[in-house]
C-alpha cells in the first residue's frame, strides 16, 4: 500500500473541487488557496469554490509520464484560466490531441488519478475536458 488513507481523506475538499483564494484587499484570485495574498500580502483572504468553467490557455503533451500514471500516457497538461480569474495547471482528458486548441472552453470533471494495487485506495481528483459543442472562446452548458 503506497497511498495514505488519512492523507487522501484529509485532501477531499481540494481533490473533489477547485478551492481558490480571493483577496478582499486587492481583489486578486489565485490557486492553490493560501493564507495570505500572493500579490499584496494581505491576510484578508477568503477561500472560494470555483464553478469549474474556464479556457485552455496553453498545453503540452507529456510522454515522460511519472510512475503510477503510465496508464494515462501520453498525458495532456494544460494551463486553464478559470472564469473566476485565476490560472492553474490541470490534466486535460476526453479530447483527441489534434482537436486541442488554445482558447477552447473546458470544464472540470471528477476523474480517477491513480490506483494503489488491488487492495489499496483509488484516488479521484479534478481534471478538465472540452465543453462539448461550445464555440471557440465562449461556452455555456455541460455536455
Amino acid at each position, binding site marked *: 500500500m503506497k497511498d495514505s488513507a488519512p492523507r487522501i481523506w484529509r485532501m477531499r475538499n481540494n481533490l473533489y473541487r477547485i478551492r481558490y483564494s480571493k483577496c478582499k484587499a486587492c481583489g486578486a484570485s489565485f490557486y492553490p488557496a493560501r493564507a495570505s495574498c500572493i500579490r499584496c500580502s494581505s491576510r484578508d483572504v477568503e477561500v472560494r469554490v470555483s464553478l469549474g468553467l474556464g479556457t485552455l490557455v496553453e498545453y*503540452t503533451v507529456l510522454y515522460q509520464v511519472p510512475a503510477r500514471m503510465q496508464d494515462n500516457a501520453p498525458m495532456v*497538461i494544460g494551463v486553464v484560466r478559470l472564469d473566476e480569474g485565476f490560472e492553474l495547471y490541470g490534466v486535460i482528458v476526453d479530447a483527441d490531441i489534434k482537436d486541442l486548441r488554445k482558447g477552447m472552453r473546458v470544464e472540470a470533471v471528477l476523474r480517477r488519478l491513480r490506483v494503489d494495487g488491488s487492495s489499496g485506495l483509488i484516488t479521484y481528483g479534478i481534471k478538465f475536458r472540452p465543453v462539448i459543442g461550445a464555440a471557440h472562446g465562449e461556452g455555456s452548458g455541460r455536455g
Partner: protein
Amino acid sequence: MIRNVFINAGSAVEIDRHFDKGFKALALEAFRRLESSYGSVEPDTLVISSMAPESMSEQIGIAGVIADHLALRRLKVFRVEMGEASGLAAILTAYSLVSSGLSKGVLVIGVEKVSEYPVSLIAKVYSMIGDSDYTGLYGISPASEAAILAKIYMDRYGYSYEDLFKWPVLMHKNAVKNPHAQLRFMLKSDSYKDSPIISEPLRLLDAYPFGDGASALYISSMPGDTAVEISGVGSSNDSCDAISREDPLFFRSVRESFDDALRMAGIGRDRVKYIEIHDSYTPYAYIVLESLGLVERGDAPRKISMESSSIDTTYVNISGGLKARGHPWGATGIYQTYEVFRSLLGEAELSDSYGAVQSMNGPGSQSYSVIMRRVR
C-alpha cells in the same frame, strides 16, 4: 565579529550512471580527490547536500552515515536539502557557519544517486520538488511545466523551437572540455530530430541527463596559500508553481537572490565575468539569464554567443551546464561552485574578476546565488 570565508580546495567525480558505486563510495571518492589535490584537511563540520536519499537509497541521516564512512569524528554534522538547489543552500549554510565563527573548517560534499531505478520512478521522485498535493499528485511533472513555459516564451518573443535548440548544442560543445561532465559529445543544430519528445516541444536533448555524482569543497576562515573568497551570498523564494505568478517568464527569486549577493559583494553585475547557471531544461537557461539581468527580456537566444559561450562580457556555463555536465540533483550546486572556483584559480583572464553561481529549485521556486573572487 563576521569572519571572511574562503574556499580552499575542491574536487569532482565524473557524473555518470555509477551502477558500481553507492552514495558512500561516491562521497569518499570526492573526499579523496580533494585531499590528493590539496593535502589533508581537518574539518570540524561536515555539511552534506543531497536531495532524495530517502527515496533513492533508503537512507535518513545521510550526513552521519557519510561522516562515519569517511572515519571523520568529533564533527558537527548536517544535511542540507532544498530540492535541486540543495548544493547552493549547503554553501550558504557553510558560509553562515564559518562567518559566524561557529565552525572553522567545513567540508561540504554534494552527493546524489539518481540512476538507481527505471526512468518513470526517477521522474516521479523528481516530481516531488514541487507541491506534491498540487502538481505531484496529478502527474504534472517538472518537464511538463518547463514545456509550457517554453511555449509561452516562444509565443511571446517569436522564437521557433530550432531557435531555442542553440542552448543544448552550446552546452554539449562546452562539456567536451570538462573532464567530469556526463555528456561529452557534440550535437549538430538538427540533432533534435532524432531525440524523443518528453513533453512537446521539449525533447530528451532539452533536459538534463539522469546521472550520479559527488563533488566536495573545503570552506574555512583561513585563506591559506591560494584561495577564493566568497564575497557575497543571496537567497529568495517565490510560489512553487510558475503559472500563478504575475509573469511566469520572469523568475523574481533569481533576480532577488542575485541582487542580494551583488550588494553584499559591493559590485555591479558587470564585474561578474563568469557565471554557472541552472539550466535543467532549455527554456530555463534563457529565462534565468534574463531574470538575472544579464540580458534584456526576450533577447537571450539572440545574444548568447556560440563561439565564446558568453552574454556580452560574461562567460556562461563553460562547464556544459546541467544540460551536459549533468545534474545529480543535490550535488549540482557543489559542482557549479567547484567549477567557478577552479576557473578563478586556473584562468589568468579571470584572476582579477568575479565569478558567480546561480541555483534554483523548480522554475525559480527557491533561489540561491554565490559570488566569489580569487584573493591569493
